[in-house]
């Protein structure tokens, strides 16, 4: 088994306040991994640090044994839905076609073969009938499926998804998780930022439990224990519990 992602002693801070502290873990290839933790735990920050989209203070990130700069085209990122301008003049099909851009290089336009492949990816998420719609005319779940199709069109080894199930209908959620599991079975590595603990056992092989520091990392059954979760989530509520204790 090869290592897909290796993070060693990662520190990230925003304007002086620490967002991630001393985070280390490794993800093997062919795993479906969830990143969970309370709000503001640095889950999205971790994904962005993996992609080198934000400055690391300290630490190392290795993607398939190399630096992210050498491996950029092997990683696809699906952003949070709230970060996209849904009024942008672009159709569903053209959005998926963006996924073929990294392989094309400068000055080259997508050819017939790229368009056929984008269509195939759109087919996988069951969205071909909407291909000529403007992306803002879709429901939240449909939008998320289109962005997954775009990631598929990038043909990466590693998929990073930021909160793909927020504001998503049941059918879309099922479609998405099914595809992610298929990708895992094909040997791809999938990392998902997720906030809903209930489905975690069903969805993931391993969990990264985060609250600025790495609280725990390992197979789902081990991490999803109440006493482990408390360590991550209780920190957030502790001022309140203290108050109650005093009263």
């Amino acid at each position, binding site marked *: 088994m090869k290592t897909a992602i290796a993070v060693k002693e990662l520190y990230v801070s925003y*304007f002086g306040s620490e967002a991630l502290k001393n985070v280390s873990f490794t993800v093997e290839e062919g795993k479906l991994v969830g990143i969970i933790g309370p709000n503001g735990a640095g889950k999205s920050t971790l994904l962005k640090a993996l*992609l080198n*989209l934000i400055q690391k203070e300290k630490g190392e990130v290795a993607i398939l044994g190399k630096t992210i*700069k050498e491996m*950029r*085209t092997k*990683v696809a*990122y699906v*952003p949070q839905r709230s*970060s*996209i*301008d849904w009024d*942008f*003049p*672009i*159709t569903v099909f*053209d*959005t998926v076609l*963006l996924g073929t*851009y*990294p392989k*094309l290089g*400068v*000055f*080259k*336009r997508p050819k017939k073969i790229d368009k056929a492949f984008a269509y195939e990816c759109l087919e996988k998420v069951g969205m071909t009938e909407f291909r000529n*719609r*403007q992306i803002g005319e879709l429901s939240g779940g449909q939008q998320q499926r289109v962005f997954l199709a*775009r990631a598929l069109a*990038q043909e990466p080894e590693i998929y990073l998804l930021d909160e793909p199930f927020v504001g998503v209908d049941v059918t879309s959620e099922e479609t998405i998780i099914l595809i992610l599991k298929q990708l895992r079975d094909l040997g791809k590595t999938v990392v998902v930022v997720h906030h809903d603990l209930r489905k975690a056992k069903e969805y993931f092989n391993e969990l990264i439990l985060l609250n600025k520091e790495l609280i725990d990392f390992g197979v789902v059954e081990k991490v999803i224990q109440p006493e482990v979760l408390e360590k991550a989530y209780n920190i957030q509520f502790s001022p309140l519990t203290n108050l109650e204790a005093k009263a």
Partner: protein
Amino acid sequence: MINFIDALMYYGFLQKALTTSIMVGVICGVIGCFIILRGMALMGDAISHAVLPGVALSYMLGINFFFGAVFTGVLTSLGIGFISQNSRIKNDVSIGIMFTAAFASGIIMITLMKSSTDLYHILFGNVLAVRPSEMWSTLLIGIFVIVCVYAFYKELLVSSFDSTMAAAYGLPTRVIHYFLMTLLTLVTVASLQTVGIVLVVAMLITPAAAAYLLTNRLWVMLYLSAGIGVLSSILGLYFSYTYNLASGAAIVLAATVLFILAFVFSPKKGLVWRAIKNIRKREMLSR
């Protein structure tokens, strides 16, 4: 109208004015699309004003004002980026501080040169007095801008739509930003004679905004925006010549009228269509 066409056949200055303003319509329309899609309308206004000290400097040094304009335009956009990245000051505030400073120093430099007529023409444009050399430099800038947009269309599209994805796959998004700022400066310089510094921003955003209401595809938007820009130029010049109005202001108002038409009558997004849809829906429900 026939008078205008007759005059067009007869007068060289009018031909030059028309050619120049058509080219300005095209390039402002094209660059304007990216400006509004990236939410940089205020930045467009800022850069166009920031060109003024550069123009003044060029006059003093006796060089082509093109160089000075690009210099202060790019310098201002770097300054804006530097302030908003290195302090808690928000981007729009940083834009406001930098461009007014640049504009004010430009005004002082020009008053020191004691030529207020030049200042008036730079600020408000006078396309009927355009010189052949200026027409040619507009053409060269226009060709350069169009070629750049064509060559980097893919990169401009993806970085405007989803800059995180663009950065994630290794596009130099910051370089693209400053590259676009440079193109914006060039377009401003090319538009100096036609609409002037103060109104350039209208030519950048009004046709693009009208086009934005009419289509769901970026490349269609680019063509439409250029087309609306050209139509505004022709209409504006016609009214300017026929009724002896300031050319820049006439062109801008023509663009505004076209925008209002798009706003009211756009299929799917226009006021009229939405009203019809609402009435139909109400009828359906009351049945």
